[in-house]
């Protein structure tokens, strides 16, 4: 039995999650009470997420387990700075998505159901928060499902075109299968160890009599569930279809926030379950039961190669960005392959940069699609000349996604490659570098269409409203500033390397 004081302490540790739940309920109630005029709802959502962000920042530097059984040294939810960093990424992404939704034609058309839309987004965010800090396999499974169920509905939410429903169905089928596989893997781990807590599993799999085949089989099944969330090969088939079919605000959200939560979960899962200790140089020592390193190297190379080469002949911008986000998942996995604090630092930096540039690219694509009603690259011909502001902004985001200086994308790649070279994985670094070269082709191809190709018919001039102009400018400024003055980013990431270990 849990003592009462312990319960109060646990609740005080999960204040951000509680605030989020309350905001979700308030959103549903506002939707019901003010059903005639729904203009208020986005502002309630915005205020709610800002409040949540405030409580998360308060948790910075805090360390502790919520829902810790009496006499035990571990619990179900780990509160640490690593979690704070990823939760802040989710919160910032949510703030931007709310701003995007103000300006998105697709979302404006469904304004009668805007209450459900924001309630479901908050459901996703709640799931992500628990994914980021869960240290118990069942809580991991439940939070992943909470996030997935909300996102299945959201990906088919607008129902304006055929492709919305198709995206929802594909997301649902792939998602349900991979989470089913994950649950089977969890049941095997439970059978081996009698516990679902990652810390208990960690101490029990160091037993020399453990059945290695079962551990390997269960690990691969669990990776299937997480790999689906971060859209790594070979579980990436849903990504292009869902990204193309879903409303663009949700696509942007999936590509940043849900990938962040998936990565946080994967890192914490491997770090707490399969690592015995971290030595003085910050290298993680793997327990000798399952060779995660080889598996992750193979998967990350496969993921980025598949993503980059499939993106080469995409004509739909959303689809192209989907393949590019698969490739970025491959780069990010390289940070985990190193299995060191340095690699983790590289992942944190890369993710904060990826957040800005990917959201920016999707925002510009959304603003253009609002006007011309298309995401086809051939409709972009001459846009850079007629609408120079959007053209130049998109160019900066795409150059940053390639990883060229002086943009922030370069800093992300730089730290990743430094980590790889320091770990003496030169061959992997070279493959990643060659992949970046391939990616240059399809990013620059967009620029060629915008600035150099003569349009067949007259191109519309796209003017953006003042709020959207400010939004784009903020993202562009962030990319350029962090590309030159990146010390604050690195400092923030360094102070967030604290993960509750053994």
């Amino acid at each position, binding site marked *: 039995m849990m003592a009462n004081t312990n319960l109060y302490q646990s609740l005080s540790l999960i204040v951000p999650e509680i605030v989020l739940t309350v905001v979700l309920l308030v959103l549903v109630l506002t939707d019901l009470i003010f059903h005639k005029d729904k203009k208020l709802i986005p502002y309630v959502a915005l205020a709610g997420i800002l409040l949540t962000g405030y409580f998360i920042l308060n948790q910075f530097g805090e360390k502790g387990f919520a829902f810790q059984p009496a006499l035990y040294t571990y619990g179900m939810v780990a509160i640490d700075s690593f979690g704070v960093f990823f939760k802040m990424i989710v919160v910032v992404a949510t703030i931007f998505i709310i701003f995007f939704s103000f300006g998105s034609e697709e979302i404006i058309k469904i304004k009668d159901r805007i209450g459900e839309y924001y309630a479901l987004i908050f459901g996703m965010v709640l799931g992500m928060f628990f994914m980021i800090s869960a240290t118990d396999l*069942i809580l991991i*499974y*439940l939070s992943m*499902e909470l996030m997935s*169920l909300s996102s*299945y*509905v959201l990906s*088919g939410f607008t*129902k304006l075109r*055929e*492709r919305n*429903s*198709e*995206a*929802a*169905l*594909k997301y*649902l*089928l792939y998602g*349900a*299968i991979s989470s*089913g*596989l994950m*649950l*089977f893997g*969890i*049941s*095997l781990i*439970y*059978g081996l160890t*009698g*516990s*679902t807590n990652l810390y208990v599993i960690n101490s029990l799999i160091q037993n020399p009599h453990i059945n290695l085949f079962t551990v390997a089989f269960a690990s691969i099944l669990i990776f299937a569930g997480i790999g689906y969330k971060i859209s790594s090969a070979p579980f990436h088939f849903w990504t*292009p*279809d869902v990204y*193309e*079919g879903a409303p663009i605000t949700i696509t942007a959200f999936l590509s940043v926030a849900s990938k962040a939560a998936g990565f946080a979960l994967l890192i914490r899962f491997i770090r707490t379950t399969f690592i015995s200790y971290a030595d003085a140089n910050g290298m993680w020592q793997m327990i000798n039961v399952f060779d995660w390193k080889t598996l992750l190297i193979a998967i990350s190379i496969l993921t980025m190669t598949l993503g980059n080469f499939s993106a080469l*002949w*995409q*004509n*739909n911008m959303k*689809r192209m960005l989907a393949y590019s986000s698969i490739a970025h998942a491959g780069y990010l996995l390289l940070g985990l392959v190193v299995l060191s604090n340095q690699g983790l630092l590289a992942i944190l930096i890369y993710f904060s940069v990826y957040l800005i540039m990917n959201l920016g690219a999707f925002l510009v694509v959304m603003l253009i699609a609002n006007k011309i009603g298309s995401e086809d690259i051939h409709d972009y011909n001459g846009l850079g000349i007629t609408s120079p502001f959007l053209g130049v902004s998109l160019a900066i985001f795409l150059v940053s996604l390639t990883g060229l200086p002086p943009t922030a994308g370069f800093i992300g790649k730089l730290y990743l490659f430094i980590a790889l070279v320091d770990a003496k994985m030169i061959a992997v670094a070279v493959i990643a570098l060659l992949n970046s070269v391939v990616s240059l082709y399809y990013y620059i191809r967009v620029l060629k269409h915008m600035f150099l190709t003569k349009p067949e018919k007259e191109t519309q001039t796209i003017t953006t409203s003042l709020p959207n102009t400010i939004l784009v400018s903020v993202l562009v400024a962030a990319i350029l500033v962090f590309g030159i003055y990146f010390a604050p980013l690195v400092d923030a990431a360094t102070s967030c390397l604290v993960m509750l270990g053994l």
Partner: protein
Amino acid sequence: MLQVGLTHFLIVSAILFSLGIYGIVTRKNAVMVLMGIELVLNSANINFIAFSKYGNFGLSGQVIALFVIILAAAEAAIALAIVLNIYKTFSNVNVDEIDHLKE
């Protein structure tokens, strides 16, 4: 007299798991695919309950199974709603034919 032990339960769950995967891979109707997924979830449930009974792990496995049952119900509700929506748009629920999103 044959004693029913842990192995028997595990064999049943392995068969269910394989049947579920087989159904997911071969069936074309979206509803049948969802039933395959349901089999996979229930095979995991059998594992949890069998392990918790025969491994003397207390009641935790059975509580987990309860959670999974509730979650499977929620998932089925959302899945069927999406399939219904698909039927309204495409007039069929055949996963092979709902493939308009391509390059």
